[in-house]
């Protein structure tokens, strides 16, 4: 948890917001800080107090499936890592007795005299992120929740699966601790249900149910799992793959409505009805309710205090084109409180909200900012003795349940250079960092080896700890015994332990040779380039400009607007034409934005902070060139409608009667009297989800519902039939889907085993499909056939070559980390948003664009970037100037030039180097060495692999 380490984040936990006054840029917030009854400065999180505390307390963190004590900590990596006393259950605080914890605590941290404190904060802006609340128990009761212990919510099941959960990751029935053989998931519990006032779809439960089912299957491959659903809404980027995987693993998906769940012998009887109206029942050992995300319980209270409005479901009210603005200026919203959503979307919103807030108070930037200082780096003497400290991590039971961690740790005893070794339960926790720092001092360590999880996620954390301890951060080696041992060899603990020993031995061998590497900083050019002038590009440019940075929009078309110019209205009824005009006017008038139309990017070189682009501007037949220097680049090149030639096996001849949804929308927005067809058939997933394109385009279900509603609005008697696979009207769009059904739009599912058939054209147009309710084939002769076609990215293949950034199998850009870095690309200084990233509706595009702008502003704000020290370097003595490296480098980061004596020698452009190592591995004379991966280090590692120590 990085947040716990930042000197610029003050965590005020156990805190209630009492009041918020003032105006944007100048608010005063009043808080009440409830006491923990434990002095955070003194608590070492040793856990002794919990062991002595006599009172039992139902553990909320474990969803009530375990017990803890009034004095406790939720989980070892918690931030702040301080225990606290629950005043409602503590014997002393309730009855004035006990106090046994006070003498038990060795660091005298327990302080019952603590009183609530009030605190006033001066702030410029507010971001509201109170998340989501629970679905009420009365809604769950109809499935026997609360009456039968083996009916669980998905969150409870999540705790069962978790290594730190009540049964340490084993799935057991709560009634008699047997391992369940049959588990059922019931979808849409507390969602898409007006019975509990939650008409919306919670958007995440389909995906988490698949995840939980897959994890349960991993724990016990024999378990039979059935998911009862209405529509499988796995519309996110690459999410359908998870469903396919689940099907391949034998997880059963049944489209049905579950009527009830009743105790039945030793089991639970689940009664459900299929589409054709037939009823069935089946016995299960455990039933998991995929509960939706409700509005936070105190949403009203919070809205009253801060003065913003809620929507009809008690989530925060926002607009399509301003999705993160609450109705109170200066107060922004992010995360599940804005509407149910998953982690990637929440994280994107957070970055976006940060960017908007930053723009609002840009004049106060850096005024309150604390610059983190590190102790002076200790220089290693030339022949300083190697003193290695090894830390082996249990990762709770993630590693510890498979790999024999104590054995691995003991194994390092006596190895050359190892002067200290230890285990830790969670080496990434805050107190473990303190331990590492302390041990570095105590034992004068100068190399650290951590055997834990992936360096991709955790190396920066440990390196930071090294810096805090005054060591160069490169004196660190990470060994991944989780992914590479406990995960992949989960069923062979002995082999996993042996492999961990091998890897640790190799890591130590390498560590003996690692050297400090200098950190370099490069200045940043204070300008951004935004590629693409659609809604994404314009939104990103506006945010950057508002934050104070000059921005150039390069648009290859004639004007701004992009794909949105083909749309007329949104599902929520916004006037797209007018909104788009407002945004483009703002862009054109902004003094810090320069718009270049008819312009294309021809070439780009450089690196984060220092890019140089060659632009070609077309004017009639002639073309002009210009260059632009910029520090960052945002790619917002968008996408376009896909026009498949074949849909579900039928050849398509587009005509006035066979159209795409966009074409239908244009017709409906027009003026013609007969613009609403008397009868329309819509086919969903036309050319998507494995038909022609592999993926789901996320917006087509909404598009169909929107057009169907428009037809019904123009002519209530018109007939509209929608043939679909899963209606993916997630979030609030579910309301529109319900409305369409109420207005008589007929929705009929089709399966891939019985695809709709299209024949004829013009007047003879016919659509034949299987009707599961009538259980027979039906043929219609509609006036119009509207195909819900997907979205394809625009020009990503060429651009990916130009910029050297990867695209995924569907030709959308591949982000650096789907969950944690959703708008950053693997090349530093390059960001992505909009349809170029993946298909998505306009409100999500606006958010993503704002997030990309916020991320792109980071290097611009800092004014300099730090270059990773793991770069290549050339030994000029050895180099023969052959130029092989220059021709091979994928980043143009190594150049051959004549030196003073006129000899051709290669040289690394440090700031461009990505440390990939291609040059070093190809150099015929071994003149190139990679920082952190020198030949010497790697040979040592390989040699160590061959050595089996005497102990074995």
């Amino acid at each position, binding site marked *: 948890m990085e947040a716990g380490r930042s000197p610029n*984040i003050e965590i005020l936990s156990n805190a209630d917001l009492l009041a918020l006054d003032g105006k944007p840029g100048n608010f005063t917030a009043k808080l009440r800080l409830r006491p*923990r009854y434990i002095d955070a400065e003194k608590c070492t999180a040793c856990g002794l107090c919990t062991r002595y505390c006599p009172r039992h307390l139902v553990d909320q963190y474990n969803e009530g499936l375990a017990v803890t004590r009034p004095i406790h900590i939720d989980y070892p990596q*918690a931030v702040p890592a301080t225990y606290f006393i629950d005043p409602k259950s503590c014997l002393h605080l309730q009855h004035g007795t006990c106090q046994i914890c006070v003498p038990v605590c060795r660091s005298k941290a327990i302080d019952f005299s603590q009183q609530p404190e009030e605190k006033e904060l001066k702030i*410029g802006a507010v971001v509201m992120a109170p998340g989501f609340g629970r679905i009420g128990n009365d809604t769950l009761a109809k499935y026997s929740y609360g009456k039968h212990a083996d009916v669980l919510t998905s969150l409870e099941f999540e705790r069962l699966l978790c290594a730190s959960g009540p049964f340490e990751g084993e799935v057991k029935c709560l009634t008699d601790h047997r391992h369940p053989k049959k588990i059922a998931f019931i979808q849409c519990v507390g969602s898409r249900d007006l019975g509990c006032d939650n008409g919306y779809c919670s958007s995440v439960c389909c995906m988490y149910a698949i995840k939980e089912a897959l994890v349960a299957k991993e724990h016990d491959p024999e378990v039979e799992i059935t998911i009862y659903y209405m529509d499988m809404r796995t519309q996110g980027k690459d999410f359908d793959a998870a469903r396919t995987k689940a099907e391949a693993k034998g997880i059963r998906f049944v489209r049905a409505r579950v009527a009830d769940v009743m105790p039945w012998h030793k089991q639970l009887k689940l009664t459900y009805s299929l589409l054709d109206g037939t009823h069935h029942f089946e016995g299960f050992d455990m039933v998991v309710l995929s509960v939706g995300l409700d509005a936070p319980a105190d949403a009203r209270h919070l809205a009253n205090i801060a003065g913003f409005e809620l929507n009809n479901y008690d989530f925060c009210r926002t607009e399509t084109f301003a999705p993160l603005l609450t109705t109170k200026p200066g107060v922004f919203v992010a995360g599940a409180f804005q509407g149910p959503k998953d982690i990637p979307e929440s994280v994107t919103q957070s970055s976006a909200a940060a960017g908007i807030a930053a723009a609002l108070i840009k004049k*106060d930037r850096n005024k309150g900012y604390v610059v983190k200082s590190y102790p002076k780096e200790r220089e290693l003497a030339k022949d300083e003795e190697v003193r290695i400290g090894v830390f082996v991590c249990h990762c709770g039971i993630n590693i510890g349940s498979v790999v024999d961690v104590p054995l691995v740790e003991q194994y390092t005893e006596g190895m050359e250079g190892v002067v200290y070794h230890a285990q830790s339960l969670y080496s990434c926790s805050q107190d473990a960092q303190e331990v590492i720092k302390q041990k570095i001092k105590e034992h004068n360590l100068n190399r650290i080896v951590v055997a834990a999880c992936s360096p991709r996620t955790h190396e920066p954390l440990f390196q930071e700890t090294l810096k805090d301890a005054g060591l160069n951060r490169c004196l660190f080696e990470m060994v991944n015994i989780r992914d590479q041992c406990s995960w992949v060899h989960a069923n062979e603990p002995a082999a996993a332990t042996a492999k961990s020993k091998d890897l640790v031995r190799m890591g130590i061998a390498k560590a003996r040779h690692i050297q400090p590497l200098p950190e370099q900083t490069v200045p940043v050019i204070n300008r951004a380039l935004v590629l693409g002038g659609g809604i994404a590009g314009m939104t990103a440019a506006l945010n950057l400009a508002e934050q104070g940075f000059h921005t150039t929009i390069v648009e290859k078309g004639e004007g701004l607007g992009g794909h949105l110019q083909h749309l007329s209205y949104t599902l929520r009824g916004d006037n797209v034409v007018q909104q788009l005009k407002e945004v483009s006017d703002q862009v054109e008038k902004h003094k810090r934005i320069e718009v270049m139309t008819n312009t294309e990017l021809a070439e780009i070189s450089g690196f984060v902070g220092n890019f140089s682009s060659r632009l070609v501007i077309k004017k009639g037949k002639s073309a002009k060139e210009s260059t632009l220097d910029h520090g960052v680049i945002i790619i917002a090149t968008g996408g376009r409608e896909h026009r498949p030639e074949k849909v579900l096996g039928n050849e398509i001849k587009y005509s006035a009667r066979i159209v795409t949804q966009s074409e239908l929308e244009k017709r409906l927005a027009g003026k013609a009297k007969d613009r609403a067809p008397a009868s329309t058939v819509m086919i969903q997933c036309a050319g998507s989800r494995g038909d022609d394109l592999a993926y789901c385009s996320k917006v087509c279900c909404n598009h169909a519902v929107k057009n169907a509603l428009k037809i019904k609005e123009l002519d209530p008697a018109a007939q509209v039939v929608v043939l679909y696979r899963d209606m993916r009207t997630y979030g609030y769009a579910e309301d529109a889907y319900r409305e369409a059904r109420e207005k008589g739009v007929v929705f009929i599912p089709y399966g891939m085993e019985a695809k709709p058939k299209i024949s004829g054209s013009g007047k003879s147009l016919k659509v034949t499909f299987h009707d599961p309710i009538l259980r027979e084939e039906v043929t219609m002769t509609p006036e119009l056939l509207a195909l819900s076609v997907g979205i394809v990215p625009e020009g990503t293949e060429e651009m990916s070559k130009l910029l050297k950034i990867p695209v995924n199998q569907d030709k959308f850009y591949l982000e650096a980390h789907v969950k944690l870095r959703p708008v950053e690309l693997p090349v530093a200084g390059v960001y992505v948003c909009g349809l170029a990233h993946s298909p998505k509706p306009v409100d999500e595009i606006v958010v993503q664009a704002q997030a990309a702008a916020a991320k792109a502003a980071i290097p611009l704000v800092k004014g300099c970037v730090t270059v990773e020290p793991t770069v290549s370097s050339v030994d000029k003595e050895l180099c023969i100037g052959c130029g092989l490296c220059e021709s091979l480098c994928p980043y143009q980061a190594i150049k051959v030039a004549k030196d003073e004596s006129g000899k051709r020698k290669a040289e690394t452009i440090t700031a461009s180097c990505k440390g990939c190592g291609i040059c070093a591995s190809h150099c015929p004379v071994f003149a190139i060495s990679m920082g952190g991966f020198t030949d010497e280090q790697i040979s040592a590692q390989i040699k160590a692999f061959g050595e089996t120590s005497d102990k074995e």
Partner: protein
Amino acid sequence: MGQAKETKSGAVMVVGGGVAGVQAALDLTELGYYVYLVEKSAAIGGAMAQLDKTFPTNDCSL
């Protein structure tokens, strides 16, 4: 009741310490602002801290 007053300029308050709040706080500091992260429970992390593995990448939560 104790009283404390903070008069730092260039500060933002984030209410809620789940993934959303924490990410907003981190980005705000990167953009040059001081952040008060207000959380009503005893620790930050929100719902994500309770999840075992999370889709789409299924690695550990924090």
